[in-house]
């Protein structure tokens, strides 16, 4: 029976795992410390944390290390771990106005209250390979601290950044998303999404979405497969306080901070002829990941159009395809054996051929639907 089934599957799995580990450790260099990943490959770690939906930078760095740099695999490790944790408390809602911003740009206005704040970015640098990084024995740390660019008032107090959307809201130019916001937001990790989804569900799913998928679908709208081509009110990166209610005093207590990227986008709507306005799309994700936050805001705005005309505007299409765990798992499951189903469809093909039906493989027109 040796040619039918692999014997001793457990032993084979263990050997494959060992081989995978060996790949990581076979070279001459020292193992990478999770601290190094967290500090020096922060964007990689942030991406895993965002897609994993778990803000735990050290664990995210561990996941990236264990996954040998595959962000989707790392996010998968984090989500699987998160699902085993008991949920003790929910944090208090926090306004993005409280953000301790390290970077904030507003493409909509030349100048905004609080000012443009470039922060740490490579957006405007020439993308040239820096060969100096090949040998970096004792790098000189540039002198500019991040705090150096944060806006402060004359008395040294930090300035709270005025939300650019609020400027438009004050002028009555913003059309709020349809429907009342729910009292308690849904939690799509505990309640399955059914269609049509609420906006809270859409935003949660997008926030955990795979960065590449969010970028691609958001781009599809700009590329012409959709109507949304937004102007960004602002993009921010910074830290938000995480507060929970104290179990005894009932007072909110700040327990930690979380680094997030936030994006607000405005889209002109001319639905009411006499009263055109701006609809807005929102994006927020853990860590520094501006591309994903912007893509998310495009998709949020597109989904509010709730049309089936374009992929990015169809909430079912978007939510069914942006989840990295789902797409990664199902795409890769094709590697599993399929000989039972293959035998079954083989029987149909042969039977129809014997019958003398059309010679072309018309039976396959459903895209091999039966073969999962």
């Amino acid at each position, binding site marked *: *029976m040796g040619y039918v089934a692999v014997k001793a599957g*457990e032993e084979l*799995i263990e050997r494959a795992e060992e081989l995978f580990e060996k790949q990581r450790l076979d070279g001459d260099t020292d193992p990478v410390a999770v601290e190094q990943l967290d500090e020096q490959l922060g964007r990689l770690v942030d991406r895993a944390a965002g897609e994993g939906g778990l803000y735990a930078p050290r664990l995210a760095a561990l996941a990236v290390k264990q996954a040998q740099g595959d962000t989707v695999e790392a996010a998968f490790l984090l989500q699987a771990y998160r*699902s085993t944790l008991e949920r003790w408390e929910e944090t208090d809602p926090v306004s993005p106005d409280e953000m301790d911003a390290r970077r904030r740009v507003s493409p909509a206005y030349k100048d905004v209250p609080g000012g443009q704040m470039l922060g740490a970015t490579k957006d405007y640098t020439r993308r040239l390979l820096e060969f100096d990084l090949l040998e970096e024995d004792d790098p000189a740390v540039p002198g500019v601290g991040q705090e150096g660019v944060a806006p402060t008032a004359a008395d040294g107090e930090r300035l709270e950044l005025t939300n650019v959307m609020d400027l438009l809201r004050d002028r009555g130019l913003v059309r709020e998303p349809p429907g009342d916001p729910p009292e308690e937001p849904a939690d799509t990790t505990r309640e399955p999404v059914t269609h049509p989804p609420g906006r809270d569900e859409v935003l949660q799913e997008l926030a955990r979405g795979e960065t590449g998928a969010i970028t691609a679908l958001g781009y599809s709208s700009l590329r012409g497969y959709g109507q949304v081509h937004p102007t960004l009110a602002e993009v921010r990166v910074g830290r938000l306080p995480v507060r929970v209610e104290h179990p005894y005093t009932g007072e909110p207590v700040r327990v930690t901070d979380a680094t997030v990227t936030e994006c607000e986008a405005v889209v002109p709507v001319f639905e009411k002829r006499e009263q055109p306005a701006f609809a807005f799309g929102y994006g927020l994700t853990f860590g520094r990941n501006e591309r994903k936050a912007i893509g998310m805001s495009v998709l949020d705005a597109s989904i509010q159009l709730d049309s089936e005309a374009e992929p990015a505007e169809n909430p079912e299409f978007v939510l069914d395809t942006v989840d990295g765990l789902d797409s990664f798992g*199902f795409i890769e499951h094709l590697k599993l054996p*399929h000989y039972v189903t293959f035998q079954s469809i083989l029987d149909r093909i042969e039977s129809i051929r014997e*019958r003398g039906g*059309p010679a072309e493989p018309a039976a396959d027109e459903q895209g091999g639907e*039966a073969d999962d």
Partner: protein
Amino acid sequence: MTEPGRGEPESPTGHRPEAEDTDDGDRTDGPAPASVDAAMEAFGEGGLAGYSYAYLDEHTKREVRRTMLSAVAIPGHQVPYASRPMPLARGWGTGGIQASLSLLGPEDVFKVIDQGSDESVNAANIRRLAADTADVDTTTDTTEADVIQTRHRIPEEVLTDEQVLVLQVPITDPLRTVDPSDAANRRRHAHANYGKMWLRLYESVAQHGEIDIGARYPVMVAGRYLMDPSPIPRWDVPKLDDADALFLFAAGREARIYAVPPHTAVEPLAFEDRGFTVERFDDRPCDVCGSTDTYRTEVDTGDGEVRLVCNDVSFCRKRQQRPGLPTDHHLDDPADAGEGGESA
């Protein structure tokens, strides 16, 4: 294994409340623990260090069991549940393993097959997860198992009323082939409006003279819901009809559970003049055990010869030792009828 349809939702199946006087107290049975703390303490000793007994926390297992009860109550109807991210990739049996882990207790015997084989690496991986976290005994013998998790097959040996078959499901809705929208398809199910599927079958007959569906053959359950039986071959579809065992269909990626309870009518869609047919093997027996009444798959041995061999590897082994062993051999002797308890 008790049938979940009759057990208390709060009680892990297979453990009746009278089991309170467990000797070691490691795992409580019966009444729900008073608090999450109590539950966690009670299960703290079993399974894998650092994780709950049977991996999932007790709230999740309860939710999954309640979903199963709803599914049993409405045969063939897809019940949504909040599928958890599991330590297996989605599409690799995460729905099945959530269902299995929610059912299993430490006394249960568990069997896992993937495409008919206990020894495929994916089956081995799932079995390892259950053995490590739920501390269950495992077996390859269909008749010994209380819970069998399977991908794409129903075992050849007849299942008894003490067994549960958990089928892994990649695509939950048979209507997906005619419309990708879940919202639209849920409406169709609500109205029992299956015209599009009938049309799809009719078009196949008109074009090819017969129905071109291989596995995943659409069936009507209890005369009401159109159901995707998961990608089992057509060969296995008749086994669902009026069976003694409970069939649970669990999808992780698509977050749905549905069921065919025991003794439920399951009828493949077909026309009077174009009936439902199973796979044909042209009377070629299994090359190993000589069976002609089992599902066989082709094996290319590389020497230019294509051989047919049994797909249910475990039963093929039995047949090699006892040629002609009937698929219901264990039913004659009740002592051998899937009582389980002993591991293999």
